């Protein structure tokens, strides 16, 4: 039935193995009688043993090793594979152990992108569809290299020869082909004689016919082992594979973070699913893991066959939805949803904080990467709004983003001294704005004062941290306080129980002039020069006259006062003082600065107005 008329199949092995192989083949060919001749037929060895045992009146245990021996003796006819600890025999009606590879040379899908008689392309826009796909997120329109070439756009070109680069910069894999060229037989000569036109340099180098050229020009000789190639060109090769999937017009493979899977095998999540997931997250009151969603909403358990695929599908789908935000990190897929309470202070906008902390990305961060724990003195501003800077030190212990467009990671910060837990989040820096950690407003206000040294410590869980400080007996002091209703700073009596650096404590005893600070609007606080001038004028000593004022202040006092109004690192403050000629160092006193405002030209008209006012008075 499986063989064509006149065909006979010969099996190898002992007579018994040949006979058994013949029986196995007949049974499996019968099972797949409706299959194509090349299609693989699978049957478990257990089933075959049970079947033959019933026929032969023997036990499956005795037959199993004989079946194994029969298929091992005929590898061309039978294949063997294991799935979930079950051994399967593979064959086809043709009597081959492997399926014939699918002919993909000219598929229907390919013809859609590369027609035999394409229409003339005047403008690339003509072939980009303007029809909005029925998805909430618009997928990028992928265009085949064929169309790009027609439209005159550059496409990655296949290069038979490559320009020779600086020898010192060449990798060992490139050096090898050079030697081969030197001793090359005549068959490679034509390549050198008539090179395919590529980049300009005249000095060219042929590559062996076992080497491929990557997009960055690197020549990879496939004669090397996979391990060696991955070691030498791993990153470049990974980039090529990632780019191939990203540019695949059919989007056959999808990615989430650093994992990939085929799109047509993913589970479908409809609108009802998304609504259920969102309701679940909102009900939990904070970000939840993908495992929790699968477990509680879909009753999917870890360890089952479909779990990882289901998990990937969920993560991929949620990442395409605007109502969900990924707030996790590698190994901890946390999801937040629209409707959850916002983390962080409502009294200061994220955009303002990003601009305040821009000095971190401008190179004025004076901290270094730390291992496991970071200690930091709280400034008045940080205490007031419950924020910490995402400087190099904090960034080294906090989680890194998993997705390219990810802007935040949710943290759980525990204060073991008070058995309290806080939902916080890391806001990542962008090229123009700094990053920060926020969500600690309640903790700071309840237990700490400005000037306290807090220590943030990482735990085994990448999104869980502990925060601690040194406790002391109660100290009574009048400390600076921002009176929100009257929008002004006042000193208020406070009893605190945290060890502080006296120089950084905004107490009335040492820094009484701080009450003169105006609670400038946030937009004004973004102008660093304006803040420094205001601090000089209100906290500094006036040494000049009324007509020609001149202010003097110690750097530490200036730094403390500036950090009441906005965060600013010492290097950034020093930079601002150094770049403006209105500020200059006091040569007689180390660490002190003068500020001499530039006289403002007064016009004649204004003089007259002032005189008029005086007259009226």
């Amino acid at each position, binding site marked *: 039935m499986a063989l064509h008329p006149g065909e006979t199949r010969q099996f190898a092995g002992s007579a018994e193995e040949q006979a058994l192989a013949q029986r196995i083949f007949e049974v499996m060919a019968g099972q797949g009688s409706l299959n194509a001749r090349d299609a693989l037929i699978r049957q478990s060895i257990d089933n075959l043993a049970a079947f033959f045992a019933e026929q032969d009146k023997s036990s499956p245990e005795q037959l199993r090793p004989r079946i194994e021996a029969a298929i091992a003796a005929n590898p061309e006819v039978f294949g063997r594979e294991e799935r979930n600890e079950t051994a399967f025999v593979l064959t086809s009606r043709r009597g081959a152990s492997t399926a014939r590879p699918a002919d993909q040379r000219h598929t229907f899908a390919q013809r859609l992108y590369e027609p035999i008689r394409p229409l003339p392309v005047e403008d690339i826009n003509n072939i980009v569809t303007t029809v909005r796909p029925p998805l909430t997120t618009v997928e990028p329109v992928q265009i085949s290299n064929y169309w790009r070439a027609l439209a005159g756009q550059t496409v990655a070109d296949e290069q038979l020869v490559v320009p020779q680069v600086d020898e010192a910069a060449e990798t060992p894999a490139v050096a090898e082909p050079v030697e081969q060229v030197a001793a090359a037989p005549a068959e490679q000569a034509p390549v050198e004689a008539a090179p395919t036109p590529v980049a300009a340099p005249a000095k060219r180098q042929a590559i062996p016919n076992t080497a491929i050229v990557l*997009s960055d020009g690197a020549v990879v000789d496939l004669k090397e082992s996979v391990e060696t190639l991955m070691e030498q060109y791993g990153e470049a090769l990974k980039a090529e594979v990632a780019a*191939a999937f990203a540019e695949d017009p059919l989007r056959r493979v999808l*990615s989430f973070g650093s994992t990939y899977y085929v799109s047509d095998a993913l589970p479908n999540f409809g609108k009802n699913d998304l609504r259920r997931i969102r309701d679940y997250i909102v009900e939990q009151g904070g970000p939840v893991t993908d495992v929790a969603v699968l477990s509680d909403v879909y009753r999917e358990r870890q360890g089952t066959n479909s779990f990882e695929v289901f998990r990937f599908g969920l993560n991929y789908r949620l990442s395409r939805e605007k109502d969900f935000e990924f707030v996790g990190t590698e190994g901890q897929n946390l999801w937040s949803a629209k409707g959850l309470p916002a983390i962080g202070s409502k009294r200061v906008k994220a955009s303002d904080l990003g601009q305040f902390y821009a000095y971190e990305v401008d190179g004025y961060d004076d901290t270094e990467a730390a291992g496991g724990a970071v200690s930091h003195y709280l400034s008045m501003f940080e205490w007031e709004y419950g924020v910490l800077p995402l400087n190099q030190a904090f960034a080294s212990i906090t989680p890194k983003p998993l997705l390219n467009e990810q802007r935040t990671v949710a943290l759980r910060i525990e204060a073991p001294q008070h058995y309290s837990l806080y939902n916080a989040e890391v806001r990542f820096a962008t090229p123009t704005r700094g990053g920060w950690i926020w969500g600690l407003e309640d903790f700071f206000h309840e237990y700490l004062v400005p000037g306290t040294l807090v220590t943030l410590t990482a735990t085994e869980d990448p999104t869980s941290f502990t925060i601690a400080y040194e406790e002391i007996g109660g100290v009574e002091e009048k400390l600076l306080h921002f009176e929100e209703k009257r929008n002004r700073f006042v000193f208020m009596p406070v009893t605190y129980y945290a060890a502080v650096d006296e120089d950084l404590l905004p107490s009335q005893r040492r820094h009484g002039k701080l009450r003169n600070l105006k609670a400038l609007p946030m937009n004004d606080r973004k102008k660093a020069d304006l803040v420094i001038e205001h601090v000089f004028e209100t906290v500094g000593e006036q040494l000049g006259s009324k007509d020609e004022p001149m202010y003097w202040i110690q750097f530490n006092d200036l730094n403390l006062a500036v950090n009441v109004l906005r965060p600013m690192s010492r290097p950034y403050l020093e930079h601002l003082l150094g770049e403006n000629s209105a500020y200059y160092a006091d040569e007689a006193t180390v660490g002190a600065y003068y500020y001499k405002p530039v006289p403002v030209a007064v016009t004649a008209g204004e003089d007259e107005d002032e005189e008029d006012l005086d007259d009226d008075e």
Partner: protein
Amino acid sequence: MDARNVRIGETGLEQLIQWLRQTGKPQSLEALTERYVAILRELVQVEEVS
């Protein structure tokens, strides 16, 4: 196959996708790349031998 005819990211991609499907679970970029290199080596060297 002559390696000079290999278009990285196109040649052997179908086999890589087939392999990914057969594994039955998502794979890391590292694992995919290793497999892709193995496929390319097979394509280049197998045909050279025959």
